[in-house]
């Protein structure tokens, strides 16, 4: 007995650590979206602010990236679901001797590194383009086209796997029955096979869209003139990070949780309804008097969904009236004092060090240079891109003050007219 509870406890500890690893980063990242320092950090907590959301929604490149991602996602969903479905159908009827080879070919893109797919797509279509004698601005070298094509190469494999799982439960006799009753092949497909496949097609489409939306490795070679959101994010993250990205992440997290809960709630509800139908007597069914369970009854996912929705509304409401100005001003004042002190101390230290080095006359260690490029991120660090702050904490230069006119960052999102073009401050370009 004691032994058992010991295993129990260790299992729970293990689970706790695991999920902390899994979810902790997201929670911390989300939290940094509400802290006022212009480098995303949770500690020290300075002021609750919503300005990063406003900054995010004024970032042309992010908005443009989202639009491109949606375009690419739509194209990829259509192409990869179509190819995945055709591939899955083919798999169920291909000549047995070819099946293993065929399966290997259509599953291979999942294992080929995305970078390789990106490169091969680029190289191949470039060659086709040249063979056809088309210029550099032809359709075939268009970033949207290449990205959709490149992503679909492997996303279609995921779709195929999802679809084939359902297809295996399909009875071919159904199609034959439809044909026998006079349907054309297209009609049989549309009226019988497609409705049967609909749930799987929906999952495949969602999967394809998500995979496309978050793809980086392939897209980074193919995007051309159409940087997707992921590409823009990567640029930003590589060249300096701001809490505006945390704000975006937070929005995505909330949307995701929302979608997941909604999905879960609807599944649960379907189960409950099915159960109620099963239990119901024949008369109840026939008289149509069957009492179906309410949306919230014994459906914890639905309850959670409502809670999250309420919380979102509450936060948005707070954001609309909340002003962090006071707090920020105080913190700023305090910080200014602190930094002044620290800068002086630093100067003194550097002075000391320089003297030491001059004495040694040896190789000057590059990291001793007083420029901004002294942190671990330095390899890709581009100081010009940043306004004031750097990703390195050691270099505690004063943070840029947010423009005064901007009293409610988040509110601006909801009524843009209210906003006097307040730049969220601290965000790039």
């Amino acid at each position, binding site marked *: 007995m004691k032994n058992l509870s010991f295993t129990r406890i260790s299992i729970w500890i293990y*689970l706790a650590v695991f*999920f902390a690893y*899994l*979810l902790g*980063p*997201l929670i*911390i*990242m989300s939290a940094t979206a509400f802290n006022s320092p212009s480098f995303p*950090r*949770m*500690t020290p907590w300075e002021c609750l602010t919503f300005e990063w959301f406003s900054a995010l929604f004024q970032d042309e490149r992010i908005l443009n990236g989202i639009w491109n991602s949606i375009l690419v996602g739509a194209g990829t969903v259509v192409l990869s679901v*179509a*190819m995945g479905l*055709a*591939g899955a159908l083919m798999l169920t009827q291909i*000549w047995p001797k070819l099946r293993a080879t065929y*399966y290997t*070919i*259509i599953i291979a*893109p*999942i*294992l*080929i*590194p*995305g*970078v*390789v797919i990106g*490169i*091969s*797509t680029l*190289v191949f279509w470039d*060659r086709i383009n*040249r063979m056809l004698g088309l210029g550099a601005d032809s359709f075939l070298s268009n970033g949207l086209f290449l990205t959709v094509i490149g992503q679909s*190469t492997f996303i*279609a494999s995921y779709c195929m796997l999802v679809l084939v799982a359902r297809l295996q439960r399909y009875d071919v006799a159904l199609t034959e029955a439809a044909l026998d009753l006079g349907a054309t*092949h*297209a009609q049989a497909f549309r009226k019988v096979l497609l409705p049967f496949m609909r749930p799987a097609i929906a999952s495949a489409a969602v999967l394809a869209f998500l995979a496309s939306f*978050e793809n*980086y*490795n392939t897209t*980074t070679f193919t995007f051309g003139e159409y940087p997707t959101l*992921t590409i823009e*994010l*990567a640029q930003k*993250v*590589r060249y300096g*990070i701001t809490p505006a990205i945390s704000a975006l*992440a937070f929005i*995505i*997290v909330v949307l*995701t949780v929302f*979608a*997941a809960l909604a999905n*879960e709630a609807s599944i649960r509800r379907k189960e409950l309804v099915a159960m109620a139908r099963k239990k119901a007597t024949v008369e109840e069914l026939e008289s149509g008097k069957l009492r179906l369970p309410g949306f919230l009854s014994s459906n914890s996912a639905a309850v959670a969904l409502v809670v999250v929705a309420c919380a979102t509304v509450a936060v948005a409401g707070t954001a609309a009236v909340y002003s962090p100005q006071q707090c920020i001003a105080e913190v700023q004042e305090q910080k200014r004092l602190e930094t002044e002190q620290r800068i002086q101390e630093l100067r003194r230290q550097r002075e000391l060090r320089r003297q030491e080095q001059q004495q040694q006359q040896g190789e000057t260690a590059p990291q001793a240079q007083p420029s901004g490029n002294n*942190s*671990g991120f*330095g*390899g890709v660090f581009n100081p010009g891109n940043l306004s004031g702050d750097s990703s*390195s*904490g050691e270099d505690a230069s004063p943070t840029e003050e947010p423009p005064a006119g901007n009293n409610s960052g988040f509110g601006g999102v909801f009524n843009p007219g209210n906003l006097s073009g307040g730049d969220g401050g601290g965000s790039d370009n």
Partner: protein
Amino acid sequence: MPVFLKEFFKRNGTGMGSLMLALVLFWTIGLIILPQLSMLDFSFRPNLPPPEIGGPKDVYTLENYKYLIYGPEGGSQDYNAVDLKVFFRTLVAAVCVTIFNLILCYPIAYYLAQTKGNHIRIFALMLIIPYWINEILRAFALRIIFGETGVLNNALVGLGIFDTPFDFIRNDIALYAGLGYAYILLMIFPIYNVIESLDRNQIEAARDMGASWVKIHQRVVIPYAKPGISSGCTMVFMLSAGALAAPQILGGPSSLWFTQLIYQQFNDNSDWPQGAAYAVVLLVTCILLVLAVMRLFKVNMGDIGK
């Protein structure tokens, strides 16, 4: 073959059959096979400006592959030590990430598959949600944590464990944590799927006979879960060896990932053939490695993706 085709059209109708066949051919040949072959071909050509492509100078050459091994012609070193080092480091690190993920995920997958109850669905949701969120943002989240003034350093310094912030990024700890983090789901799901179909009675029977937990896993569960394990490991290995976002965001300045070299060849040096050659090397090595391991553990390709 023609018989097969005739039957195929009879079953699917001429219109639908042609559409299906066209899509499948476009995918397999137009998107999978030809681009790979084209990349292979390209990797054997010199880097020429567009007007000269197809001209007299456009001949097959091993230059690009030689470059990886010997470095630039007339270079100071005998071997291209930098790139080769990056290459092997990438492979070794990818193997380490795979093993780390396996150790981390096997218990979870087992637990999820063999436990019944509502909380399992919540766990599954909690597992999936992070993967609906952008790969870049996941890496970004880790960078916030592992940064010099990140949560972790603040906590460690605050607790007095370190007196100065520890540079997780320069030491690649952030990178490995990030790569591991990125592919947890890909490891869990295949293993979960297989173990879920394992009859609980088998485990109970083994326990009945007095087998220890270690023994049960060693003799019953792991052999049964082998296809799932190999499927998960293959995917995690291939994807982490081919990862680009995590190394770019979480990698230290001095330690490159092989994909970053490829990226540089393409974007910074505009040397496509060179990049293609590196990509071919990466692809071929990874495939050979995976095939070798598969052969070693006696699993086959058909198990992947189940």
